[in-house]
């Protein structure tokens, strides 16, 4: 499917409510017990992410955006409220391998070639070797690393390593992709390129993406919805819908619509800060 076709078949925003929820959080709370005082990392989070959404969680450090995503991935246990992933508990969703997770660092295994890093989840899931290699080839091509299958992680630049880790997360074709500041450590030029890459992948595949960032332009460029969060305690300030088209280009960042959404995000972030 080409990008243009994908954008035509994309569900219009008006019909959003008919799409099934992929992530549904109700009154979600997470309190860490520390030595001196309990720390509220997440406070009363209500959020519905529907199929095909690209949702960015944005906010300053310590606002719980990574924690929220780790709760969805069953890497942290909430202390209150409820959350479902594909209508199941996060644990069941994890056991069913419903999501792919891209971390802040590529977390490639250095002793495996790029191809074997991508096939790692497939090996664990018991896929046959021929199909594993086929998948690896397909997804490495998709992230533009076709010629690097036999290289080892240290032979690739940071941006290429992160792309390999995206291919790895997509290789088992989960319908939910969780990305935790995947481009945070990259320079702006590489970041632009990868943002463009990602938004095209999203348009092509129609998967659901949850994306953590603290860059406003990145969040606005990538997302269909932007969740603005605020720290101490971590909570949602505002959820901003973006009307930008699905097949967007980097030039979209110069348009009034883009600047308008960015402005609204900035205002929401400022409101959050005034509580400090």
């Amino acid at each position: 499917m080409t990008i243009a076709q994908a954008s035509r078949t994309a569900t219009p925003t008006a019909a959003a409510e008919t799409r099934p929820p992929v992530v549904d959080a109700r009154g979600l709370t997470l309190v860490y017990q520390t030595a001196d005082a309990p720390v509220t990392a997440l406070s009363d989070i209500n959020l519905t992410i529907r199929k095909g959404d690209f949702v960015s969680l944005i906010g300053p450090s310590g606002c719980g955006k990574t924690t929220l995503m780790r709760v969805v991935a069953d890497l942290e246990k909430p202390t209150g409220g409820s959350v479902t992933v594909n209508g199941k508990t996060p644990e069941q969703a994890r056991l069913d391998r419903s999501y792919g997770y891209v971390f802040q660092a590529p977390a490639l295994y250095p002793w495996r070639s790029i191809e074997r890093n991508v096939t790692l989840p497939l090996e664990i899931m018991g896929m046959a070797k021929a199909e594993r290699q086929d998948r690896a080839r397909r997804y490495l091509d998709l992230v533009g690393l076709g010629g690097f299958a036999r290289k080892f992680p240290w032979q690739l630049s940071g941006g290429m390593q992160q792309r390999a880790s995206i291919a790895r997360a997509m290789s088992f074709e989960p319908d939910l992709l969780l990305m935790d500041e995947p481009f945070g450590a990259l320079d702006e030029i590489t970041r632009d390129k990868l943002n463009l890459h990602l938004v095209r992948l999203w348009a092509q595949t129609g998967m659901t993406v949850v994306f953590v960032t603290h860059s406003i332009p990145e969040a606005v460029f990538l997302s269909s919805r932007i969740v603005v969060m605020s720290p101490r305690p971590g909570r949602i300030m505002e959820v901003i819908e973006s009307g930008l088209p699905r097949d967007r280009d980097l030039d979209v960042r110069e348009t009034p619509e883009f600047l308008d959404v960015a402005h609204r995000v900035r205002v929401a972030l400022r409101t959050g800060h005034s509580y400090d």
Partner: protein
Amino acid sequence: MTAAAIPGPARRALSRRLAQGRAVPLAVVLAVLLVVWYAAAVWLNAPQAGEQLDRAGTPWTTADLVVRSWAMERPVLPAPHQIGAELYESVLNRPIDSRRSLVYHAQVTLSATLAGFGFGVALGILLAIGIVHLRTLDRSLMPWIIASQTIPILAIAPMVVVVLGNLGFTGLLPKALISGYLSFFPVTIGMVKGLRSPDPLQLDLMRTYSARPMHVFAKLRWPASVGFLFPSLKVAIALALVGAIVAELPTGAQAGLGARLLTGSYYGQTVQIWAALFMASFLAMLAVGAVGLAERALVRFRGGRL
């Protein structure tokens, strides 16, 4: 002139390689060692050599004394060329299955070393796996493992040999046990560190795949620990050799480098002792070198890094 025969650039390249390589520094150290050794041989053997010259009755000079002190039959410290001659004689000029052949003794010691090394590595890895995966083992075993290495091997070796001998186990097994006892320790320590080396992110990744513990071990912990395993193996195999030699000392063993050292010291055959020592260090270099080669092969397999 030979220098003129080599073209200029090649000569410069050769001299640069010599200057940057390790050959020159090593040769310098060796030369200094030899000078010190010959001097020490004169210093230590001179009293004995002087007596011998006196007994002969003919007048002698300092030069005679020096020459004599480098050619004694049972010197306090044999000169390097004496050890060289003994090595040449006992390695090349005797049938390999003869008790007077150093190769025969070396082979006996080496087989005990390798058996002990294999046993020690297996035990070391198993202990490390247990310690990393079971909290109880971590807390209960670790202090004992460390304590085990504070017992002098010279004290425990005879007891092991005697007890096992009473049970009917002689020859290779007691020696392999003692060398395994020495060599498991670095493997355990290295592997515990190695198996715990994956960072939280790499472990979280396995969790997102809901990988079973077996997979976390086979696809993450084990491959991550291999880089820690090889330095441990190099220490372990050298220790295994020490263990095998020490185990040969108290047993009245008929064969092995340890037995050779012991008979040498019974009969004051210092040259024989030194030759056996050199053979032992040659074996150690060989063994460590073999581990190094295995490491290199693995590095190549992993694309240039461990």
